[in-house]
């Protein structure tokens, strides 16, 4: 070792360290700055058009008369139907995987398959929905066809979130129930599910908020863009907020762009409300336990 040539260059190394730290800090701030710019931009563009009339009128070719009533109602219908399809299916699948599935190749296949489905692009679900629900099952271009498609899309997320919630239930609760002579289902129904429910509900609401922001799969199944009436049954044709936003944003006129911004503000408020509900629900149910 020729120690006399060793120079720790501490000053330079510390300087590099500081530069690196600030670069990483800048990267973190960049994402947040973008979020702020996006929110400010959309709100300032859309605020002028936001009014009660905008919420209660139907779409129109004249910007000043256009509204999003049919889109809001369509989104609410879509939310309700998607929830009632994906929640029981997703929770059922999660219970099966966590509590019943034997440790064999088929269970592993189920689990891998769910992980892979979560990565399939949403537009591919649109192709599936178009072929299976719209044509093969004959649902036509209805709310039901859209909700069935979106349910398949969010199902992996609901399953994975529910599995995590179920897995977090302590073993002692299960063993206590078995010790009192409960069957497996009694144990799940009365011990596991009540404890896991806050987590399951949070996961479901978050995945629903993803569903109501989805545009591509609904365009695929042919959700019409000009709908001047609200859906009256699951078989009605429909439009939803993201589709109305896409429709207005893809027109060249600036007035329509501002309408799109106003509709975006409404959509973001709905999403925010859903997220807040998820958090409140979680806290409340947690307190009751």
């Amino acid at each position, binding site marked *: 070792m020729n120690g006399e040539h060793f120079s*720790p260059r501490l000053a330079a190394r510390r300087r590099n360290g500081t530069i690196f730290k600030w670069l*990483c800090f800048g990267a*973190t701030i960049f*994402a947040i700055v973008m979020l702020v710019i996006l929110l400010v931009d959309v709100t300032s563009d859309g605020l002028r058009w936001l009014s009660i009339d905008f919420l209660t009128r139907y779409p129109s070719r004249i910007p000043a008369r256009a509204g999003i009533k049919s889109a809001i109602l369509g989104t609410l219908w879509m939310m309700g139907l998607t929830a009632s399809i994906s929640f029981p*299916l997703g929770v059922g699948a999660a219970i099966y995987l966590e509590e019943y599935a034997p440790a064999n190749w088929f269970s592993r296949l189920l689990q891998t398959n769910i992980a892979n489905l979560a990565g399939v692009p949403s537009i591919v679900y649109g*192709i599936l929905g178009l072929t299976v629900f719209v044509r093969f099952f004959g649902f036509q271009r209805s709310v039901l066809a859209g909700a069935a498609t979106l349910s398949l899309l969010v199902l992996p997320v609901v399953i994975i979130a529910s599995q995590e919630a179920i897995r977090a239930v302590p073993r002692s609760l299960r063993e206590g129930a078995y010790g009192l002579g409960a069957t497996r289902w009694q144990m799940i129904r009365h011990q596991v599910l009540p404890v896991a429910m806050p987590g399951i509900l949070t996961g479901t609401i978050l995945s629903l908020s993803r569903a109501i922001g989805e545009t591509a799969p609904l*365009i695929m199944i042919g959700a019409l863009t000009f709908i001047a009436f609200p859906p009256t049954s699951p078989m009605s044709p429909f439009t939803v907020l993201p589709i109305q936003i896409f429709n207005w*944003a893809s027109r060249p006129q600036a007035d329509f762009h501002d309408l799109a911004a106003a509709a975006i503000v409404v959509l973001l408020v709905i999403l925010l409300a859903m997220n807040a509900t998820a958090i409140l629900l979680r806290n409340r149910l947690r307190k009751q336990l």
Partner: protein
Amino acid sequence: MRGRIADSLVASDLTPHGKRRLVEGSINGVLFLCGLVSVLTTVGIVVVLITESAGFFREVSIVEFLTGTQWSPMYSDQQFGILPLLNGTLIIALGSSLIALPIGLGSAIYLSEYASEGVRKRVKPALEVLAGIPTVVYGYFALTLITPVIRTVFPGTGIFNAASGAIVVGIMIIPMVSSLSEDALSAVPRSLRAAAYGIGATKVEVVTRVVVPASLSGVAASFILAISRAIGETMAVTLAAGATPRMTLSFLESIQTMTAYIVQVSLGETPHGTLEYRTIFAVGLVLFVITLLMNLLSQQITRRFREQYE
């Protein structure tokens, strides 16, 4: 004597037991069916894409489809070469990676190695909000804010250009890279860091030469997942990047991605069952195969190369 008492006990319990078993069995069955839905979804996707594409490939040769450099199914001179659409998709994937991978990793490093608990608590929800914004909103953002900036900096650029789409998709996938990479970085045990400090490394050396290499598999997996997401992204690129399939490496031209093409056809009046209509299944199949392979690759990397500490 004893045996007979035991026997009678069992016999008197038989009915409720039998009923219980029936209930338990049927619940098991119903729950299994719920799980089966996800398998049926995969089977449905594969069957739909393959059977409908088969009709397409009866009329257009696979070689022509995969190697042709012109895509014009809607013109009288029909050409079915998917390369221009792949080109468009790759430009978006490349451009968005240039933005999201370094920024996402940088913010993951900051959050995992430098930030205080308080900062982390405030920044992570903001990233989650960014991840939860619908893609059509990002499309609006690209069209009305990013595109005008690009057109000021590079005069002569059209309204629709790849750069605007790539930038916005990049912003969209930052939270994914950041959160998955952060998980990988924080999983590196303290002892490794302590050992590096012990032989005189500075913090930046510990981070870049010990922590990041040690979590490389997780970081790489997050990169692949994010790129796969960029490839499948639809609404933002449909709104911002245009509808002109072409072979180009320029970010300032209008392009068309595979996803944007599928949207374009389904918005139009193309009749069901025609060759033009079937193109969306062939393009969808290519899209599905690419994203599936990338997801499998990412899982494989996580499984194979995960460093086991403990």
